[in-house]
Each structure stands twice: as structure tokens, then as C-alpha cells.
């Protein structure tokens, strides 16, 4: 019988702590699939964040450092400058990268650090219980925007890919999603491309992944996936935001 799918060997047989319907599990698996298929397990070093992704060291069978909240891109910079031959990527949420770690991410991109940022955008602070994130949509209800996000008092959703695309150091920026099988396939391709570009020395790459958070969105899993298509991706359009030819 032909095997059409198997659990990647690099993904430990542990039970995920993620909520039902959460996108992190899919993204964790995709990362390990890509690293396995590209035969990079001996080269990969992951920088884990603070947030829902912080426990991924329990699942990844590769070297992992857990960084302080928001500092992933700076820590990854330090690792990569010492070990340019390794594949170094940070895994960061929206609060991590677009709020507390704005400076670190922005300047790593601007320096053109040859690292990859896996940016999981689910529009809320998940682990702490669903507070407003910089990427929360206008009128979206969270525990800290009980009447919906009002731009007058809470500002506007931050579009990281669009902001980074202005930086000359950023070489590859793509926004994808994990809310349907075709979207998951696209996400896997984007991750593989970002990693390949890093191996080729092309400079800073970032894959932004729109990811469902049914628990904090107060939706079921199907509604969450539909909401990404119908609402979230209007604010955060999918596609390649920037791709500089690699010299």
C-alpha cells in the first residue's frame, strides 16, 4: 500500500497543548515536514517565543532556544552571526513581533540578517487569554477591547509584511494562511522557499501566517476558518509582498 501521509519524524509524538482548531499545530507540523524534506535537521536552530508557541521545544526534534518575549529576531541575529552555516529561524506571534518586539524584528529586517521569521498572526494574545494584539481588527471584540477595537483609543491593525516591504534589507516577505487544505499547501511552499533563500544567502525572509484562534475568537473551528477568508484576509491580503531576486 502506498503511504500518502505520515507524521514527520522530527515532530515528537507528544500531545499538543494547543486548543482544538488552533493553527499552531498545523504550522508546527509544516515546519518539521519542510526541515525533514529539505534534510536540514542537523542544521536547524529554532528560536521559540513567549506566547502560545513557547512550548514548541516539547515538539520539535531540532535545537531550540526559547527567547524572551519579542526578542526572537535579536537572539536569532546573534546565533546566525556566529553560525552562518546553520538554518536559523524565529517563531513569533503577533504580540511578540508586532508589539513588544517591533524594534528587534524591524531592525533585523533592515540589516538584512540572513534569518527567517515565522510570524503567526492570529489577531490576539492567545496564551494570556485573548487580549487585543497589534493585529486585532477594528471592531473586533477581545478581553481588552470589550466594545470592539476603536481606532481612536486603540489604534489600527498593524500590517507587518507591508511595513517591512519598505525596508531595503528585507528580501522575501509572503503572507499565507492555514485555514484550508490548499492554503496549508501554499504555506508549506512559502516556508520551504524562505528556508531555501536563507541557505542561498539571500538575506532576511519572513512568512506571515494567518492562523485561527477559535478559543479567543469565540467561534467554532469552521467559523474561524471562514472568518480568515471573509474578514481577516481583507485587512491582511494574502500573497508575496516582496521578493528581491537573489544574487
Amino acid at each position: 500500500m502506498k503511504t500518502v501521509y505520515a507524521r514527520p519524524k522530527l515532530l515528537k509524538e507528544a500531545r499538543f497543548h494547543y486548543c482544538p482548531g488552533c493553527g499552531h499545530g498545523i504550522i508546527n507540523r509544516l515546519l518539521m515536514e519542510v526541515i525533514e524534506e529539505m534534510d536540514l535537521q542537523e542544521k536547524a536552530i529554532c528560536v521559540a517565543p513567549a506566547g502560545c508557541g513557547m512550548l514548541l521545544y516539547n515538539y520539535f526534534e531540532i535545537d531550540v532556544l526559547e527567547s524572551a518575549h519579542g526578542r526572537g529576531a535579536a537572539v536569532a541575529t546573534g546565533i546566525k552571526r556566529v553560525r552562518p552555516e546553520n538554518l536559523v529561524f524565529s517563531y513569533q506571534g503577533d504580540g511578540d513581533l508586532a508589539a513588544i518586539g517591533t524594534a528587534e524584528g524591524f531592525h533585523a529586517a533592515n540589516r538584512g540578517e540572513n534569518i527567517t521569521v515565522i510570524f503567526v498572526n492570529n489577531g490576539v494574545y492567545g496564551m494570556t487569554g485573548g487580549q487585543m494584539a497589534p493585529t486585532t481588527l477594528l471592531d473586533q471584540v477581545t478581553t481588552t477591547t470589550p466594545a470592539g477595537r476603536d481606532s481612536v483609543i486603540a489604534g489600527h491593525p498593524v500590517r507587518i509584511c507591508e511595513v517591512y516591504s519598505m525596508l531595503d534589507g528585507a528580501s522575501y516577505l509572503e503572507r499565507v494562511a492555514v485555514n484550508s487544505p490548499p492554503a496549508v499547501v501554499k504555506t508549506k511552499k512559502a516556508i520551504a522557499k524562505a528556508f531555501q533563500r536563507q541557505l542561498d544567502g539571500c538575506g532576511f525572509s519572513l512568512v506571515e501566517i494567518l492562523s485561527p484562534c477559535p478559543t479567543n475568537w469565540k467561534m467554532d473551528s469552521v467559523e474561524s476558518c471562514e472568518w480568515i477568508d471573509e474578514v481577516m484576509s481583507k485587512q491582511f491580503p494574502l500573497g508575496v509582498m516582496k521578493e528581491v531576486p537573489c544574487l
Partner: protein
Amino acid sequence: MKRLMSGNAALAEAAVLSGCTCYFGYPITPQNELTEYMAKRMVDAGGVFIQSESEIAAINMVLGASVAGARAMTSSSGPGISLKQEGISYLAADELPAVIVNMVRGGPGMGNISPAQSDYFQATRGGGHGDYKTIVLAPGSVQELTEVVPLAFDLADKYRNPVIILGDGMLGQMMEPVDFDGLIRPPDYEKDYILTGAKDRPPRKVHSLVFDTKLHEEHNWKLFRKFQRMEQNEVRYETYLTDDAEMVVVAYGIGARIAKGAIKRLRQEDLKVGMIRPITLWPFPAKALREMAKTVNDFFVFELSAGQMVDDVRLSLEGKGHVHFYGRPGGIIPTPLELSRIISRHCYQAQAGAKRKKR
């Protein structure tokens, strides 16, 4: 061969000679010469130099370089060191070596750019969140700066812990003749904890998050035992004219330099004053002070602050002896003459007090 160098530049040179291959810094006075020296020297030496976007980024780059196996350093002054505390706490929790230089300036807040010793508490109490300590080295001359640098890198590697070099604006800025002839590069340590990619070994995980409170308590006790070993093995201090002393000055760094000048004057007046100069502020030479208290009753603490180390002197003496204090905060640099007048007043008062007791 002796060279005339500023403390900042000499420290940078000593770091490179000690095998430091990564430096990350952000501009702040009075330590900019260190960053500027590194910008050229580190690149010439084939190492990594980054002017970071903030002190927070710099300390996290240090953490990244350290977990990748490199000898890494950052430097700053007061306000910038406050920002680095988050990263220093993570370095201690992750048991990663690093050297952090603080050329202290007047505080709190923006303060000023004059020399001060007001970051003593921050340096010796851990500084950031959680139960941890850092070894704190306080040199008193440009030559000694170059001597504590290889020691700092060695202790950092030996104990897998951040080490602080606590200077001040004067030590960083002033130029003195210095030679590097005696500088021995510390040995490379076997590092079985660094991240290099999981080749021919199981994957490694470096993290400070420990949800299981029992495991986390054990991690804290493990760190605590390490700090106890440091307290047992790494106390360093220097004594000056203490053999016949009736009053012992306790001062460190540039403060000790000023105090030495004052003591020379006092000795001319036949006042028997000596000095103990802690070189490690943590671990503090508590035993040495307690030992002295067997023969000396009066201890005079001098600091370029409103009084921080004086607490450690009192704690060390455990109620024995009489502790006097003089300090000037805010970036003021007292002269040896000023200090000698203050100390002599305390000496005479102590002598008068002793006579009264006898009667």
C-alpha cells in the same frame, strides 16, 4: 610595551585578546569609546560587531551568540544597563556565559554623564527579576581593567553565568599607560550545552520556562548552589596599610583610588588609617571584614553614591565595630583632600569616643 589608552579602549582591546569574538553595543556616554574601538578592532580580528537598535537588542544578541558558543560581550552605562536587566536575567536562568560592562554614570533617571558608583545595588543584587546573582568585578585603574577582562570571560565560562564589570565614567574616560604583556587568553571550555544543529547528537533545548513548579524549584536550587560555590571560591580584594590600622576605609573602584590619596595624607598626620578594597563586589569579602573587626573597631565606607555598599559592610560585620560613611551622589567626584578631612574628623571623634569609654 606600555601604551597610553583610555579605560574604554583598553577594556575593548583586552576583550579581543581574551578571545571575545562578538560585541554588541548601543551608544551611550561615557562608554562610547569602547563601542567605537570595537567597531574597527573586532572587524579586523574577524569577529562580529553590531551596533544594535537598543540595549535590549544588544543583550539578546549576546544571548544568541553565547548559546551559539561564542565569547560575547556588551557594554553600556546606567540607563542602558537598566534595559539590559531582562536579558541578564535570561542569561542567568539559561546558564549562559556573557560579560556585561557598566561604565556607571550619575543616576537615577537620565542623571548625567559624570562618574558615579550608584549602580552598586543593581549590579550586586542580580538586577533583574528572579533569584539569581552575577559576579561583579570592580577594577580601580586602566591597567586593572585589562586584568579583570580575561578573568571575567573565564569566570563566565567556568560558571556558565553572566559576569558584570563595574567601572565608572572616570575609569572609562581617563587615559593611563597600560600593557597587555601579561594578559593570558582564558582557556576554551568544553561546551556541551550550545546550539549548533542536532548533528550526531540528540537535539538540545535551552529554555527558562519551567511550568512544573517542583522542577523549577530544583532549577533554582541548582543555581543557588552555583552561587554558593562562587561565594566560596571567587572573593577577591586588596588591602592597603591595614597591618597597624585603627580605622579601615572600605572603598572600591575609582573611590578606592581617591581614598588611597586621602590615606597617604592621613598617614602623614600619623593617623593609622588603612583600606580594604573589594575587587569582587559580589561575592563580597565579608569574611575578610569580619576578620579585621577582631582588631579594628572603626570602618569608614566611602562611595560615589548616597550609600549602597555600606549596607554590605554592615551585613558583613554582623553588628561588630562602628561603621562610618561618606558619599557623594549625582556624579560629584570628591578630592583626596576633601576625603582626608572627613576621615580625619571621624578618626578624632572615634579616638575621643574610645577615651570616654575608658573613663
